[in-house]
């Protein structure tokens, strides 16, 4: 798709994480690709396109039986917020908080902003 070096990098990443003796904990889907595109190639990562991919990733994670990674629900909630879908945004922020209580202060701040 992109370049041999990208693949070599990914392969090396796989080998390295293999060395650590652990399978991946989370389902990752399009997250890293979207983060990169948001800044470097924004036409490939409009808010709508990201939401579509993340909603698909949500289902894929469930099918794979893997938990959503840290920040998934917060990022999705932030996208819903940008689209004016405040109910969905709130639900996503609540989910992030439930899965990762470490995010509670920040998620509560965002939820308050939705109400404000």
């Amino acid at each position: 798709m992109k370049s041999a070096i990208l693949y070599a990098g990914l392969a090396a990443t796989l080998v390295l994480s293999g060395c650590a003796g652990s399978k991946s904990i989370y389902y990752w889907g399009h997250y890293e690709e979207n983060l990169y595109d948001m800044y470097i190639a924004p036409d490939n990562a409009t808010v709508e396109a990201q939401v579509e991919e993340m909603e698909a990733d949500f289902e894929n994670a469930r099918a794979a039986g893997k938990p959503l990674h840290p920040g998934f629900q917060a990022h999705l909630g932030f996208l819903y917020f940008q689209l004016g879908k405040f109910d969905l945004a709130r639900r996503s922020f609540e989910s992030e908080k439930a899965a990762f209580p470490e995010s509670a202060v920040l998620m509560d701040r965002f939820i308050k902003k939705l109400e404000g």
Partner: protein
Amino acid sequence: MRRSVVFIGYVLVLAFLSGCATPKDYTAFRQHAPRSVLVLPPLNESLDVKATYGVLSTVTRPLSEMGYYVFPVAVIDQFLKENGLPTAGEMHQIPLSKIHDIIDADAVLYMSVEEYGTKYIILDSSTIVRLNARLVDVETGNLLWDGHVDVRVSASQNYGGGLIGMLVSATVNQVVASSTDQAHGVAAQANTQLLTTSGQGLLYGPYNPNFGIDGQ
């Protein structure tokens, strides 16, 4: 003469190996045992404007897989920009007390990108990503860990040897490089190596099944 060359080579290999194996001191890390990490956009000391986000976009995965809660990097970036901090340099100046009150992160990962990009040498190219990182405890300001990584991937490493192969790879890579950012893939590798290498990277965090049983 020949024997001394071999000897010097042997010493160099030993120096290299012991350089890699220098044990890190994890005392402060264990003492503070962070659960959550705030990653700020890295400072860019390279010549490529893509460096900051090329690196930021590939740090969440290795850090999360090590067992930490990682705050959503793009959301944080946007949140800080909206609050009057438009650049990575300004974000790195936020007082820890503010990070504690507003985000409640246990630790902050401050990174800088020293080099990022692809260099062309006759018939070959080399993609380089060089990073520095410091993990700082938010409550005390103590340094928990620091690391450095230098990853270089040569185009000729990815193809068969031989001059024709090199010619083809140099051509192919120049064409590819004009439309893509090869350093992005290398940045993923650099972040993984930096954060997860046993004995040099981070200790496992609470979401990793190996938490608390690090050999370090």
